């Protein structure tokens, strides 16, 4: 498989969780030195699916996306827009 960026990974994971994959949008917002914010937008009715009970799914998304940035030494924050 070709290179998969943290943003592309988040996009795929989010699409796998929701009813309306076409409405998933990931925006990269650089935040100065070595830090990147990934803004995740989904359809309103899908918000609960990317957050999960007690934030379990959101935390899992953050763990995996953060691990994917370890090699580049980048710090990544995942912001779920509601």
């Amino acid at each position, binding site marked *: 498989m070709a290179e998969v960026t943290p943003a*592309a990974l988040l996009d*795929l994971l989010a*699409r*796998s969780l929701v009813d309306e994959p076409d409405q998933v949008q990931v925006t990269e917002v650089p935040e100065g030195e070595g830090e990147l914010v990934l803004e995740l937008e989904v359809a309103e009715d899908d918000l609960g699916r990317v957050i999960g009970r007690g934030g379990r799914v959101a935390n*899992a998304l953050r763990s*995996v996306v953060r691990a*994917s940035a370890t090699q580049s030494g980048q710090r990544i924050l995942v912001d779920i827009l509601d």
Partner: protein
Amino acid sequence: MPESTTPPLPDDPAGRVEVILEAVAAALGLDEPVTVTETDDEIRGVIGGEEVGLLIGKHGQTIDAVQLLCHQAAQRVMDPDSRKRVVVDAADYRERRNESLRRQGDVAAEEAIASGRPIELEPMSSAERRVVHEHLRDRTEIETYSEGDEPNRFLVVAPLVSG
């Protein structure tokens, strides 16, 4: 919008797990083989190879997160009448971890019997607690139960007072 280099998602549960694991492996820079097998009650995805430490993460945090996401993604396209468990493994991580959990259970059981007091184990996931519960189920001198709230729920091994 970032350029998406990941493929569309298939509609079958095992296919989804495979696409997700391939993407996770690629995103982590792991050039390791992904295999997905399916039985009547389980979909099992394994990322093989030597360089899987990054995938496992601290205390298994990353691989447990990947497993949760694969489970959710597979669940969405699963026949509600035949729900399957989704397990994600890296090399032989789960088996080694389960061995260590059973050993911890044995040690706690001996301690509980010797001291006559309940012994608390470290917090662990429900899947890991089940491994310990099942391992100690047939012991007649002790009982096991869980206490506390997720994600810090933990297992207790308590002596059964006879008479």
